[in-house]
C-alpha cells in the first residue's frame, strides 16, 4: 500500500486529499502514475497539467522517477502562498 496525496484544487477533482493505494506493478514511473490516476478519476487531464508537480517521499521529482518503492506520493498544483 502506498499513500497518495492530492493537494489544493486537485482534491476537488479526486474527491479526497489522501488515499492508500496498491499501485499496479505495470505503473513504474511517476509519469505513468499521473496518467493512470487521471483516467481512474476521470479527471480530464487535471493531473496531467505540467504545473502539477509530483513529490516522492517529500522530495519534488520528475515524471521519470520510479514509484515502486515510494511510501508517499504527492500531487502538487502551484502553491498559493500563505
Amino acid at each position, binding site marked *: 500500500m502506498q499513500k497518495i496525496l492530492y493537494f489544493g484544487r486537485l482534491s476537488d477533482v479526486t474527491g479526497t486529499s489522501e488515499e492508500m493505494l496498491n499501485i499496479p506493478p505495470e505503473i513504474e514511473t511517476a509519469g505513468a502514475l499521473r496518467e493512470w490516476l487521471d483516467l481512474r478519476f476521470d479527471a480530464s487531464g487535471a493531473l496531467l497539467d505540467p504545473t502539477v508537480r509530483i513529490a516522492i517521499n*517529500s522530495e519534488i521529482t520528475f515524471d521519470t522517477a520510479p514509484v515502486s518503492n515510494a511510501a508517499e506520493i504527492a500531487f502538487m*498544483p502551484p502553491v*498559493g*502562498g*500563505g
Partner: protein
Amino acid sequence: MLRISAEPIDAGRELKQFESRATSAGGIVTFSGQVRPHAKQGPVDTLFLQAYAPMTETGIESAMAEARTRWDLESILVLHRIGEMHPGDTIVFVATAARHRRAAFEAADFLMDYLKTEAVFWKKEETATGAHWIEPRDDDYADAARWTKKETV
C-alpha cells in the same frame, strides 16, 4: 523559530514573548497578516489553508536561514496558521530582531515575500458564490523578485 499550527495566533502575546527574548536588540519589526473580509467574489466566509509537512517547514526554514546570512539578526520568529479561518483571524506572524532597524525591516519584508509566493501552502476561499482555490497575485511575484534583482544588479 517556526511554528505551523491550526491554533489561533495571538500576535500581541507573541510580540510580548519575542520582545522578552530579544533583549539585546535595538529594534523589532513584526508583520501580521489577517484574513481579509472581502474577496473578488464577495464577502469571505472561510479561508482554508493546507500545508504539506515537512516540505512546508523545510522551505520556510531555508528562507529563515537565508535571511540570517543576508542580515545581522538576533532572532526570527515565523508563525503560520493552517486549516479553517475566518475574516480578521491572523494567518501569519513574522518577527525579526536586530541591532539595526534596517536589517529588521528588510528581513521581515523578505520573509513575507517568501511566505506569500513560494511557501508550500494551498489556499481556498469560500464566499457566498462558492469555494475557489487561490494562486499568487502578480504583485506577490513582483515583490519576491525584488530580492533576486538585488543580487544581480
